[in-house]
């Protein structure tokens, strides 16, 4: 099937990009050829050259080094958010199925309430009011994506709990905890993996937006969104400047989304999921 083949190829491209970015995030600071915060007033706003592969910015700093160093801030911030969302979302989502009906209803409404909050504005508000740093920002974002993980793990747990073989297992005397450990966890993992991938992409996009707006940016530490923002102010001197950080952001987010799609399709094969 033509579309199936395409999907396989884009999935492998996506995986390659994600792995590359992960390496950059882990080792970017050491891979950078020059000091990302070293200013050089004699080499400002230069185009690509042998000494500076991507040119220099308005302070004479090497752009390539800044992007490599910025990879860790941007990517690690997204990872942090996703971890927060996982911690506060997955287990409560699973547990909610076994709770008393009224508590379950209340917790669902609480999750709904979180989803009603306007995302970026609330993240900024939370960041600003609790201390303007990237960690606070990503903590706020993590809280706001908790509903996604909650719903995913809850839906998966529900489908397991209501299935026949669980009934049979319980009739045969299996304890609740062993049931959870053996069956529920295994069923919940794949959709949660999909959610992780797509939330990573979303969080990276949000980190880029926040740092673009200057929230959580601690100069002179580079972030992809921050570099993009300053590149836009020097567009006349370096018209291709925003291309590098822009492509990095877009490619990474696309790769994570494509990976999420591929994971979802792989998981969806055995049963027909209507969504």
């Amino acid at each position, binding site marked *: 099937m033509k*579309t199936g083949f*395409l999907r396989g190829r884009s999935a492998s491209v996506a995986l390659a990009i994600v792995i590359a970015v992960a390496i950059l995030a882990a080792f970017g600071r050491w891979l950078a050829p020059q000091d990302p915060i070293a200013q050089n007033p004699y080499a400002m706003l230069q185009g690509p050259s042998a000494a500076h592969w991507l040119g220099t910015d308005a302070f004479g700093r090497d752009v390539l080094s800044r992007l490599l160093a910025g990879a860790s801030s941007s990517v690690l911030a997204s990872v942090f958010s996703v971890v927060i969302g996982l911690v506060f979302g997955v287990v409560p989502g699973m547990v909610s199925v076994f709770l008393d009906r009224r508590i379950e*209803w*209340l917790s*669902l*409404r*609480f999750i*709904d*309430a*979180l*989803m*009603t*909050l*306007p*995302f*970026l*504005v*609330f*993240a*900024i*508000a*939370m*960041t*600003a*009011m*609790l201390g*303007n740093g990237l960690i606070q920002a990503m903590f706020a974002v993590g809280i706001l994506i908790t*509903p*996604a993980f909650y*719903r*995913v793990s809850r839906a998966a747990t529900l489908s397991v709990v209501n299935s026949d073989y669980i009934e049979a297992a319980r009739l045969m005397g299996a304890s609740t905890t062993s049931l959870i450990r053996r069956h529920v966890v295994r069923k919940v993992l794949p959709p949660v993996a*999909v959610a992780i991938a*797509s*939330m990573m*992409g979303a969080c990276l*996009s*949000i980190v*880029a*937006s926040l740092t*673009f*707006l200057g*929230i959580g940016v601690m100069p002179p530490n580079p972030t992809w*969104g921050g570099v*993009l923002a300053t590149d*836009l102010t020097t*567009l006349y001197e370096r018209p291709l400047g*925003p291309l590098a950080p*822009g492509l990095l*952001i*877009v*490619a990474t*987010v*696309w790769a994570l*989304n494509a990976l*999420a*799609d591929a994971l*979802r399709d792989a998981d969806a094969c055995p049963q027909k*999921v*209507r*969504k």
Partner: protein
Amino acid sequence: MSTVFENPIGAADNPVQPGIARSGHVLRITAALRFLWATLLVAVPIFLGATLITFLLGHASGLDPAAGIAGDAASPEVVARIRAQFGLDRPVIVQYIAWMAGIARGDFGTSWFNGVPVLLLITQRLPVSLSIAGAALLIGATVGTLLGIAAAVWRGRLIDRAVTGFASVASALPPFVVAIVLILVLSLWLNLLPSAGYIPFSDDPAGWLRVIAIPAMALSVEVIADLARQLRTGLVAALSENYVTGAIVRGLSPRRILFVHVLRNGAGPALSILSVRIPMLIGASVVTETIFTMPGIGKMAADSALRGDVPVVEGTLVVSIVIVLLCSILVNALIAVLQPASRRRG
């Protein structure tokens, strides 16, 4: 990412399943009333929960107007006096109830920063944000639907691959990237549209359209991508359903099949997407309002948050919560109307 989110007032968890019977107005009205009651049962706690979260955020920040009024030289007694003056020394629950009571009266408090009533600040800026969000939703719904239908009807062909590819890339574009690219192309290079400022509709309708064009387009890209993809999937599935084959066999025209039957059934998930996108559109308005220097509530909320002006932030968040809830209820009603016979829900 789109399919992980659902409509905040998702009827999936709603114990009451309304159904509109095909016989008798009375049954239809009671069903509608039951639906309304069920919606309220869900919406009110959500509203209370969301406003409580908002309020607790302001409380947790520990901010007060003392810093702005008294300055660094303020002694603890002065700070305590100012806090008492603003009622900040009362228990949290009391403050929350007083605040909610005020909102019910229409009193959102006054800005700690310039003493202007919060409601006035919001009403001055709400039309700006709503114009852009509404236009973005309209553009997104229109173009997304057209692209989704085109991709589904001619599935497998070039247009389908183009739309899917576009959707895939477009969902990866942060809104500020799209906004800047559009400014560069449409404003700086082609000199077609302005890139800053806002003109109210009442002043100059044509000017208003011109200033909101680029920001609305920028915000609509994600909606288009999501909607096109979702609609395509839903329509492809619906087109292969049995009743469609039956309709073709019965001799109904393809256009009638498409618009009357297929869209009705495939539109459900697409409408859910639109409703989920609304809180995100309101949130993303911060970015467009900053880039285009527009006096909207998103920018005001962000600036006020950074200044520590808690009443303005809380007031803005409450207003957006209300808008989001109203839109969710509206979409739910729309879905219920569009799918009379089938209560199938993914």
